């Protein structure tokens, strides 16, 4: 069993905001106990999968390690009890791709998969470039100082994904607020109560109220797209058929919610974290600005560097063995993406930000059947933004101390104050 202080750290929103605390804890685990059980106070025990190779092994075997049998994200016993009470026994408040296993997972994923393939995203390139240009102009208008997270990074991917889904611009602030309330539910600066979370069962009620707000919103969108379909993801979800039947209500609502939340917060965090890293490493900024052929490796390194999704959980469907350890049917496993992405066995100098890193087979998008659906969109959006920004950016440096969001599931920088020169 993993020692209590380490177990507490790897589930602590504050430790993720600190960054170094979780990095140190996982480095220790990779060295001393790469696959071991943890039971922080208030949680059921779970295996902590820290090594890159073991994360791939679990994710590849998606029939042996399910997403939906228990909560797909870390949850306290108290919160799990409350969720089951509210849902009549299910461990999930929503049922998106993330909570599904086959055959549903395959069928539901196939519905939108094509929209997110690189060749089909090409038609969005010109429009996304227009949006990116607008944000770069706005940054220039700030006159040499801005909070890059709040003023650019949060807003640009939000605008892109909302256009892809089909949410009007006027509703974007509402979508951003709801997303931050959901992923930032443990962060007093972002959550709905504005307070530290002490009672995790009460926080489930708060999250549920955020989910209800999303559902009310997207239910109206469904009605609209059934009457008048358009060329957007909302129309695909509203009019989609699985085995000849329309999507279930919970499944349809959950589909909108995952696209509307996972579709920007992660990309925003990566964008903000990348500029933070460049501001701290002017040599790396000079390299990538001077050599456009490094663009894609720079983007890959940004994604590895930030790793905005901190974990997903899996549940063993049978007794098995992993890395020499016996895993019992029903055991819960935490896939630690930040740990996999700092694994010394795979990455040379893993704590160094290297815009030319190659190869860079990070696990920030996951792996296997659930691998991120939006990965090509995320890369494309970031590439376009940097292509527009770099030629105009002469210098950038930190203008205060950046701050990370407090969350153990999805998080990244919430504030990156910078001073910069642009032409």
């Amino acid at each position, binding site marked *: 069993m993993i020692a209590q202080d380490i177990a507490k750290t790897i589930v602590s929103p504050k430790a993720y905001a600190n960054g170094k605390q979780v990095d140190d804890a996982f480095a220790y685990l990779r060295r001393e106990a790469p696959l071991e059980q943890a039971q922080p106070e208030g949680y059921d025990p779970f295996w902590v999968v820290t090594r890159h190779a073991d994360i*791939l092994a679990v*994710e*590849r075997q998606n029939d042996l390690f399910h997403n939906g049998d228990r909560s797909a994200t870390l949850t306290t016993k108290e919160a799990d009890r409350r969720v089951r009470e509210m849902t009549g026994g299910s461990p999930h408040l929503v049922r998106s791709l993330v909570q599904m296993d086959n055959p549903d997972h395959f069928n539901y994923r196939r519905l939108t*998969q094509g929209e*997110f*393939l*690189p*060749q089909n995203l090409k038609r969005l390139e010109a429009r996304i470039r227009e949006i990116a240009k607008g944000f770069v102009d706005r940054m220039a208008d700030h006159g040499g100082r801005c909070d890059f997270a709040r003023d650019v990074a949060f807003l640009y991917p939000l605008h892109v994904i909302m256009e892809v889904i089909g949410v009007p611009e006027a509703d974007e602030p509402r979508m951003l607020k709801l997303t931050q309330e959901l992923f930032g539910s443990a962060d007093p600066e972002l959550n709905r109560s504005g307070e530290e979370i002490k009672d995790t069962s009460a926080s489930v009620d708060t999250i549920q109220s955020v989910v209800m707000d999303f559902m009310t919103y997207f239910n109206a969108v469904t009605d609209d797209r059934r009457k008048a379909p358009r060329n957007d993801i909302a129309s695909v979800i509203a009019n989609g058929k699985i085995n000849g039947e329309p999507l279930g209500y919970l499944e349809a609502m959950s589909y909108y919610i995952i696209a509307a939340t996972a579709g920007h917060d992660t990309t925003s965090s990566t964008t903000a974290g990348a500029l933070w890293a460049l501001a701290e490493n002017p040599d790396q900024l000079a390299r990538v600005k001077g050599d456009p052929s490094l663009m894609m490796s720079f983007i890959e390194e940004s994604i590895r560097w930030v790793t905005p999704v901190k974990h997903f959980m899996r549940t063993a469907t049978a007794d098995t063995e992993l890395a020499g350890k016996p895993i019992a049917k029903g055991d819960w496993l935490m896939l630690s993406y930040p740990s996999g992405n700092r694994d010394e066995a795979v990455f040379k100098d893993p704590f160094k930000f290297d815009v030319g890193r*190659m*190869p860079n*087979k990070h696990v920030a998008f996951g*792996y*296997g*059947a659930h*691998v991120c659906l939006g*990965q*090509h969109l995320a890369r494309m959006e970031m590439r376009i933004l940097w292509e527009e920004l770099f030629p105009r950016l002469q210098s950038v440096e930190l203008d205060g101390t950046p701050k990370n969001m407090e969350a153990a599931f999805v998080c990244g920088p919430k504030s990156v104050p910078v001073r910069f020169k642009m032409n």
Partner: protein
Amino acid sequence: MRPEIGPRPLQDELTPVSAEPYRFWQCRTCGYLYSEEAGDPMEGLAPGTRWRDIPDDWICPMCGTPKAEFDMVEV
């Protein structure tokens, strides 16, 4: 090798492998695109490696999906 003299062989035997058009294969799960022309040297597949010459137990380098779950696509 094309015989210089003798009976004319069937067209298939005649066409060198490299004259066949190169194709693209795409992973159904993650969208990874394999180009026969470019190969994937990082994965040990030299430029010009045909899809059929890649072993059956090969998996997608991006997401681990089996080779059988790739589709031939036009790009």
